[in-house]
């Protein structure tokens, strides 16, 4: 328990974080920025897990463990994404989203 801060305030913050991430994912022009936006979305959910675990089930640990899993998966995913972006850069010399539409119709 953190004094003076209720669950609703934390959930509000994470919601803002989540939608900022979504907004960034949709609008950013650079693939790296898109990747960072994905990280924001993931972090929002991690904070949610921890907070809900802490406030609603203080004696359980599943939420905390899950957040560690998510961080690990996010790290792996970032590695994968960055390697894809590097390969893409070697092919088309660009990391702009608008240059990646060669697979359309």
């Amino acid at each position, binding site marked *: 328990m953190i004094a003076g801060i209720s669950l609703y305030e934390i959930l509000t913050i994470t919601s803002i974080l989540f939608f900022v991430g979504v907004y960034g*994912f*949709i*609008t950013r022009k650079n693939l790296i920025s898109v990747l960072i936006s994905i990280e924001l979305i993931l972090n929002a959910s991690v904070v949610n897990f921890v907070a809900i675990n802490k406030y609603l089930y203080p004696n359980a640990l599943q939420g905390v463990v899950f957040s560690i899993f998510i961080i690990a998966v996010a790290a792996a995913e970032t590695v994968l994404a960055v390697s894809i972006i590097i390969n893409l850069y070697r092919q088309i010399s660009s990391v702009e989203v*608008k240059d990646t539409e060669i697979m359309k119709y």
Partner: protein
Amino acid sequence: MNLSFTILIPLIPLSVFLILGILSQEIKPAVSGYIGVFGLFVSTILSYFTAYQYFFVFGKLEGVYQTFTQKTVWMNFTDTLHIDMGVLIDPISVMMLIVVSTISLMVHIYSRGYMKGDDGYTRFFSYLSLFTFSMYGLVLATNLFQIYIFWELVGVSSFLLIGHYYTKPSAVAAAKKAFIVTRFADLGFLIGILIIGFYTSTYDFETLNNPEGSAILNWASGSFMGLSILTWALILIFIGGAGKSAMFPLHIWLSDAMEGPTPVSALIHAATMVVAGVYLVARLFPMYYFVEDGFALNVVAFVGAFSSLFAAVIAVTQTDIKRVLAFSTMSQLGYMMLALGVSGYDGHEGVGYMASMFHLFTHAMFKALLFLGAGSVIHAVHSNFLKDMGGLRKYMPITNITFLIAALAIAGVPPFAGFWSKDEILVAAFEHNKLIYFIGIFVAGLTAFYMFRIYFGIFWGKETKYKHAPHESPVSMTFPLMVLAFLSIVVGFIPFSEFITADKAGFEAHLNYPLAAAAVGVGLIGVGLAYLFYKKENDLAERFSEAFGSFYVWTFHKFYFDEIYLFITKKILFQRVSWPIAKFDKKYVDGTMEGIGNKTVFISHKIKGLQSGKFQDYAFALVSGVVVLALVFIYFLNY
């Protein structure tokens, strides 16, 4: 007696066909000729062995020839109605085996000389084998459907062989014509088969032909337009037979079929395939005779008699020797049909049936001989037309003698084969129907006349100057001529009535001297007239044809039947019926289908921009979808 070996008789030509057909590029022409002749030789030996065994060793039981069948069920419809495949051995099928084997073997040997140097030599021999296989199958068929299958197969091989010179447009047209006309007739055959299957629940010849069987006894069970259903079925089947046997009015294909090589004309269009129609009626003879007191049989008799007269009249005026022979074939086939039509069933009553089969047998020999002789002449002078021939007796002695023997045989001069069989036919007609008898005897005179017209025209008559002196054909061609000439002399002495009769019991046939004398007299008058007209060059024939005036012109153009058929098909059927239907099909049936396809393509073009390739667009669509769904669930569905 185990008859399983008879299945080999058709199977050997089939395997020869497959070998020659598949390996046609690898086999040298000379070798393929030997393979074809050898395969058929084995089949011929087996056929003769079967015939000997059947007629003299085991076929008879208490004086009646038995029917032997071996078959397996091929397609099963109901308990009683099924299609079998197998072989049926009875007097007429064995007799047909002999005819097909003998003629086919002679034609194979002859073709080795006649077709020498031809590009399609191997192809020709493979098709000959295919034809022989199909004909054997037709002859040995145990039921209506099997006979129908092989019936179509002989049609196909006839089509292939008529169109052997496929670079020649007239040959292609003739092949198509033969195929289409006979297919049209076979439609009747098929409907007849289906009706019989529906009303009698069997296709099997033995069951159908049993005079005490339910099929024949219950003929009156259904009627349509005043006739029994079975009579209609038999008439429809006869239409199929008439198409194959070139009976009026389905005769138009036979004279055009002469575009094929001459050995083909001898084998298919004189001796074997065209008698399939006669064979079919003979095969179902008890049905024809007993159903509705032989109404369908009377139809057969009159169609046969009319065709025989009609063709004989046309044959007198034709100038292409092969076409004269073609019309002569048609006329003789009419003879066989009318003999069947006037036949009875028991004992001596069945003389017409016996005479028909006898005439089929003898006719096969001498007509094949005539065609092969004509082929020998054509081979020597490179023309089909009488005007290019004359005085050939000095150059081609063997062909001359053999052709003369065949002509005497067909003219009915004793003791040659045609005399005996024709005499029996006339006896049968005389006892049954005087009108048919007089038609028959008139046709006999005409036959003698036109046959000696071409004989004198080819071998005597004017002395034609040839660019290259014609010479006698090689031994491979004259050998079959001599064999067939020998057969044309002796086969008449076979006591046919002891072997092949309607009730299979055998009877004593006697020569009816007054009738025989009349027939011979008419024949000799015909020969004499031809002698006067054509032996020496003179203008008697021209004066006569002018005296007949427009009748001669009509006859020369075969009574304009080709033109009538062309008018009906091209002007009426194609323009008034087929053309509008084709238009409707193109515009509406095809149009609907194509319209659906085109619309799909059009819509796809419009909406393909949705797949932009930008993943952020997809993500936006996903998120907005989630938002919209969330709003719907929260505010409208009150979750």
